């Protein structure tokens, strides 16, 4: 793993609303390294996207209370003005989004939108920008790029639009690519292709990738590090192998159990009971406690901090480490039993 390129320290993003303060992100610390895919996992509304949008300054700052630090290339992005952030957006730090059907302007040609992205940071002439665009489209696997450059977004399939978005994001060889649920809106077969493409790009250009997803299966395939988020906070944070072979938080267990697995033929998927909490009234103590089957005395009073409690990586659960290992083994055994 290379040097750190993005360091987020105690990030808080709160939105005051007439009903109360929405704590979308509430104290988040993590580091992304060069050459690493960093997976952020959690249900909708757990603060994954807000974290990344805040880093790029794409959250309206006047509508939010933001604190903490986001260090990137020697700058604290939270302290930069919109004007100072602009040269970083799309150049050092690129982002692709969930819905490729909505992310490209329907009235402009795909090629022109990428040319515009090139020209807004490099003062090159239109012809050179066009040639670079064709090269980029070719690199992300769009056939006949010199023809397709003239197409409008609606003439592209969903997968091709996401490829075009990736091409646009790569226009200036960024050191960090943020992919916000890049495959959620796509067919399963196309999902695999896009993930493969992102992985290939990461290796070829040795960049860092933040992969936001609600699907642990996706993270298992491509990520090196995983952070599991719940209600605006990290509940478990470690390398992929640590988190997948010895998960320590009941919420992670729930997520793992809800992944369909071909080896568990006939086994039923186990959903997590209940729904994510309102971010205005987050439960006291551990935010997950109302849905947790293993909650006990302190869970609804003390909020567990993200600490390494002896399990090898940080997690935020009051259970003793030996209980965690036992419970997880039991749950696994129970699943196998149901399956057979």
């Amino acid at each position, binding site marked *: 793993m290379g040097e750190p390129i993005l360091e987020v320290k105690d990030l808080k993003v709160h939105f005051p609303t007439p009903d109360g303060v929405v704590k979308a992100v509430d104290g988040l610390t993590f580091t992304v390294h060069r050459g690493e895919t960093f997976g952020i996992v959690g249900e909708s509304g757990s603060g994954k996207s807000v974290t990344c949008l805040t880093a*790029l300054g*794409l959250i309206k700052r006047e509508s939010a209370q933001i604190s903490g630090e986001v260090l990137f290339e020697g700058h604290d992005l939270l302290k930069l003005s*919109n004007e100072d952030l*602009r*040269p*970083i*957006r*799309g*150049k050092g730090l*690129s*982002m692709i*989004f969930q*819905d490729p059907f*909505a*992310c*490209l*302007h*329907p*009235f*402009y040609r795909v090629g022109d939108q990428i040319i*515009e*992205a090139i020209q*807004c*940071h490099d003062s090159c002439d239109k012809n050179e920008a066009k040639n670079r665009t064709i090269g980029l489209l070719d690199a992300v696997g769009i056939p006949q790029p010199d023809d397709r450059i003239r197409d*409008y977004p*609606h003439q592209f399939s969903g997968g091709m639009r996401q490829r075009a*978005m990736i091409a*646009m*994001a790569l*226009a200036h060889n960024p050191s960090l690519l943020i992919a916000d649920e890049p495959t959620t809106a796509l067919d399963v077969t196309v999902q695999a292709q896009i993930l493969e493409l992102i992985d290939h790009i990461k290796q070829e250009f040795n960049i860092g990738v933040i992969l936001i997803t609600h699907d642990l299966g996706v993270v298992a395939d491509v990520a090196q590090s995983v952070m599991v988020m719940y209600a605006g906070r990290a509940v478990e944070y470690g390398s992929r192998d640590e988190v997948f072979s010895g998960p320590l938080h009941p919420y992670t267990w729930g997520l793992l159990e809800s992944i369909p697995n071909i080896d568990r033929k006939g086994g039923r998927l186990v959903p997590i009971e209940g729904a994510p909490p309102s971010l205005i009234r987050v439960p006291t103590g551990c935010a997950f406690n109302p849905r947790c089957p293993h909650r006990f005395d302190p869970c609804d009073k003390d909020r567990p901090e993200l600490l390494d409690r002896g399990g090898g990586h940080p997690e935020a659960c009051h259970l003793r480490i030996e209980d965690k290992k036992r419970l997880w083994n039991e749950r696994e055994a129970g699943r196998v039993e149901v399956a057979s």
Partner: protein
Amino acid sequence: MTQYLIRRTLWSITMLIAVTALVFVIFFLLPGAAGNAGSGKYPPVAVRIAGKQPSPATIEAIIDRLGLDRPVHEQFFSYLGNAAQGDLGYSYQTEEPVTQAVLRRLPPTIGLALGASVLWLLIGCTIGVISALKRRTVWDRASMIGALAGVSMPVFWIGLMAVFFFDSRLQIYDTGSYVPFTSNPLQWLSVMWLPWIVLALTYAAIYSRMVRGNMLEVGGEDYIRTARAKGLTERSVIRHQLRSALTPVVTMYGLDLGLLLGGAIITENIFNIPGIGSYTVTAIAQQNLPVILGTTVIASFFIIFSNLIVDVFYAILDPRVTYS
């Protein structure tokens, strides 16, 4: 494209015939209609034209001359045949050819509609865009209150107030002194500015609210976020936003202008502008069928034609739209 235009044109002609037929039904067939004798002896329109206490012979001569005794469908088809050759009949009242009268009254209406529409486009779009960009500021609130007032005040009220204020009080405006543009452009301008403003006010209010709404809606679109995320300047981001937000305005504008070209009835009457609108009102009061038909057909033509233009334009502006 050609095939599409041919199909649309044929459809337009069908629509025009249907509109004509509808006017015939209203004029001849409905109970109490002007051309329908009903339980009385003569059609009311003939009695009207004959003047005070006419002799039956006079009325019958009029009926005979206007062909009112012929079966309605015969009158309808002979009207269609003549109209196809550009002959819209003769005014019952003045015996002037309707085609000629309509053509004479078209330039004032076109001048009024075009001038007002340019005005409301400029005002409406400017206010709408600035309000959206400066959302929730004093400017935004003030202009939206202004727009609400503009939408709420009916044209006949604003028009009369304007005449009262500028003509009677300030005496800087002379109502009813219309001259054609070709004979005295300066005087034409001095007459048209007030009706332009009056007519444009309501539309400007509607347009500014629409443009503001579109701008805010488009501002929340994912592709605007993409534009920011790729590092575009705020100016370029706004350009992206305008491109989507102003496209629907083209549609609205085409349809509104088409409607007004058929006569801005209230404004023309208040300011005494001899256009299609005031002609129509007079004709209706006089039960002057050929004129009513003529102005109705012209108005329908403009509406149908502007629809066609808007549809063709939209396909140019929005690459997702194709002719089929």
